[in-house]
């Protein structure tokens, strides 16, 4: 216990170790938050489902906090749903089974940029005769722009920005610009003020009803923005954390511990066991690991567990085994091993109780420094398009950004957010690892 306490005290003397520990602590907290607030199944559904789930988010929108740094404010998404806003809907019985349903969505639009798109989604309940809907747009200066008239099916979506007839009526400007532009200016500028969408529906049956949702898509969204499939990047940034940490930790433990144990067994028994281990290591040095992982990913399985397991297996017999061998060869000759042998301790006891604990101080820093390489391995594979098909990970976001030309098209946030997360994770662990190395490795102490 005192050993631990004194080492922790030593650690706090190094600023880089403190920073590393703080980063790791924050990441673990973030990971716990992600797991608690959003169960894995929910995250996967959110990430993999199509437009049905991401209907209300814009495409390729930058994070909303960018507005804090901009003089010209860009719009964020505004959603108005008559099922959520009962006061927006009024019913008037016209007699003879005829009912007029009037839905009015008034809203402020005080941004300097135009929205990305405008959609109206309606749901109608009826038995036989389909309801009728008349849509009107009222601008702050009082102009009334007819948006069209339709006989509704059960669900209907009106994508105003793609409505070519409306575009023609708006003088060649598509809806998201034409409906919001100041009509007196030749270059389109937003006319700020209160807009209204008025929906006048007629239902022809008792109990029939219409509900509507207006979505004015912004150019910015949430804390992390959205991607080309309208998915909120926050989901993947949040869930990427536990995945990255778990993978880095498990793989690093697996790789370092098994490498060390195998090296210890090899040096202790010597003979053909040692020879075999060395031969395997030599073959493994020639095997190009990444191409083989790529082949496995293409031909067998893309599951993260399989690929990571294989990578751990391949990295067990790597250069590290030689380092440990050199250490164990020295330890094997130490007098206390002689002592253990003289009281006829079993081979396994000598390996696990006398040899392995001796090199643990070397192992801990190595293990911490190894974690980032496993975190980045996932990203490596994802960037080659071999990411896990189900999980939302940082690497996959990066790959999708790359594949969709995010840098070329100027969607920098899409690349930056996952890379910053990766970099912070890598930095946190390797800063701690480097300091541990300097503390535990007596040859480095004070350098």
């Amino acid at each position: 216990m005192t050993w631990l306490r004194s080492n922790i005290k030593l650690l706090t003397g190094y600023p880089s170790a403190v920073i590393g520990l703080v980063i790791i602590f924050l990441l673990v907290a973030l990971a716990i938050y992600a797991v608690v607030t959003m169960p894995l199944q929910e995250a996967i559904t959110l990430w993999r489902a199509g437009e049905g789930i991401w209907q209300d988010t814009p495409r390729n929108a930058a994070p909303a906090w960018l507005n804090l740094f901009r003089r010209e404010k860009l719009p964020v998404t505004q959603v108005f749903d008559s099922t959520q806003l009962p006061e927006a809907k009024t019913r008037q019985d016209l007699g003879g089974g005829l009912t007029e349903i009037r839905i009015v969505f008034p809203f402020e639009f005080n941004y300097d940029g135009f929205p990305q798109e405008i959609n109206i989604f309606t749901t109608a309940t009826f038995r036989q005769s389909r309801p009728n809907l008349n849509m009107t747009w009222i601008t702050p200066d009082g102009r009334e722009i007819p948006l069209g008239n339709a006989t509704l099916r059960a669900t209907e979506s009106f994508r105003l920005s793609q409505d070519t007839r409306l575009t023609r009526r708006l003088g060649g400007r598509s809806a998201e610009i034409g409906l919001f532009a100041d009509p007196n200016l030749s270059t389109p500028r937003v006319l700020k003020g209160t807009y209204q969408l008025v929906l006048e529906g007629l239902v022809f049956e008792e109990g029939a009803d219409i509900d509507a949702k207006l979505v004015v898509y912004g150019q910015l969204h949430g804390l992390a923005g959205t991607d080309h499939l309208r998915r909120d990047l926050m989901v993947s940034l949040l869930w990427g954390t536990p995945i990255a940490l778990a993978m880095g930790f498990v793989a690093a433990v697996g790789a370092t511990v098994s490498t060390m144990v195998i090296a210890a067994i090899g040096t202790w028994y010597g003979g053909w066991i040692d020879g075999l281990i060395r031969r395997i290591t030599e073959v493994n040095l020639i095997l190009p690991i990444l191409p083989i992982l790529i082949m496995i990913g293409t031909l067998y399985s893309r599951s993260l567990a399989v690929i990571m397991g294989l990578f751990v297996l391949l990295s067990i017999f790597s250069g590290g085994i030689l380092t440990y061998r050199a250490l164990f060869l020295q330890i094997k000759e130490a007098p206390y091993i002689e002592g253990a042998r003289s009281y006829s301790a079993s081979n396994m006891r000598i390996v696990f109780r006398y040899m392995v604990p001796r090199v643990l101080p070397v192992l801990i820093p190595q293990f911490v420094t190894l974690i980032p390489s496993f975190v980045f391995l996932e990203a490596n594979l994802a960037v080659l398009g071999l990411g896990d098909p189900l999980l939302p990970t940082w690497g996959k976001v990066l790959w999708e950004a790359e594949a969709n030309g995010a840098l070329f098209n100027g969607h920098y946030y899409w690349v930056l957010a996952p890379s910053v997360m990766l970099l912070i994770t890598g930095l946190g662990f390797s800063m701690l690892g480097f300091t541990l190395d300097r503390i535990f490795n007596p040859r480095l102490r004070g350098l």
Partner: protein
Amino acid sequence: MAATQAPSMQSPASVGTQSHTSAALRIIRYTLTRLIALFLTTVVGVYLTILIANMGGHVDEIRRATIREGLAIAIGMSPEYAQLTPAQRRQLVEELAQIEFKRLGLDQPFIVRSFRYLGNALVLNLGRAEQLTSDSGSSLVRNIILERLVPTLLLTATSFFFLFFVSVFAALGLSRRYGSFLDRLSVALAPLSAAPSWFYGIFLILIFAAVLRWLPFGGMVDAPPPPSRWAYFLSVLKHLVLPVGAVVLSSIFIGIYSWRTFFLIYSSEDYVDMARAKGLPARAIERRYILRPSLPYIITSFALSLITLWGGSIILEQVFNWPGLGRLLYQAIQLYDTPIIVGDTIIYAYLLAITVFVLDFVYALVDPRVKVGDSGGRSA
């Protein structure tokens, strides 16, 4: 981190004139043993690659099914065969499929073919690609790979030599100025090397290609390629800056840090103090007492970093659209082009083996233990 095993210092006096020939013999014998051992390991490695690439024979099933399906569709669509009964048609498909199997060598059992593949692979007779062709139109895997080998070598060699010399000499300089601001900065920056080169590549593309528009996003030359040789060279150089910069950025800090630490450890040895006390100039101490005994270690880490570089360049090539072996591997995987996947992996295995061998040879030249015949000592 890497092994810091102190090479046991043999007294140079024991190597007399008469033992020169025997030292040379020992070096040759050592080198030959290593060559044979490496050849055997390469054979095993290549065979494993072939087994994995062919999914233990399953890829062939997929390929057979694909061929049959393709033929069935072609015959079904063709008006010439419209009068045939279904049975006749099936027979025709089967006949044509057998011819196609024979062409692709699929008519023999997998285990036989795997050894034929191995023999061919070892003499670099890599067969024909199934889908991809080289830029000159050849479908021989060897031609495709040779075409891609040059860009990969160019990229790897440039970044490697840059990286190696800059980090060794910077480290030597820093170990001389131990404790200065630059020295402490290098220690603080070392953790930045946790990220791989392609990761820095993305940042470099973002800054220098996307925002500043100074350098190209990727590729090896402008399209269309410049006509004159000089302009071509300049264009390649311009495209080389960002990928090489990414490699250097990702490894230089850790390189400087570990070499600095290493030189510091060596410069605190007693014999270095002794040399200082004798009043030798600092340069002579560095050359004779610090660099010389640490040479085997430097070579080992040289080899290890080159090996990492071969692997790391695969994704870097993908990110930078660099027309090298790594990108070829990626393209081949997209098309399930097994001969190319195998050929490419084999070339990587050969590159690794050659790297290890050359460095083993250099090691034999500089390691006193090999010269004086202390055969048991070498472990890295």
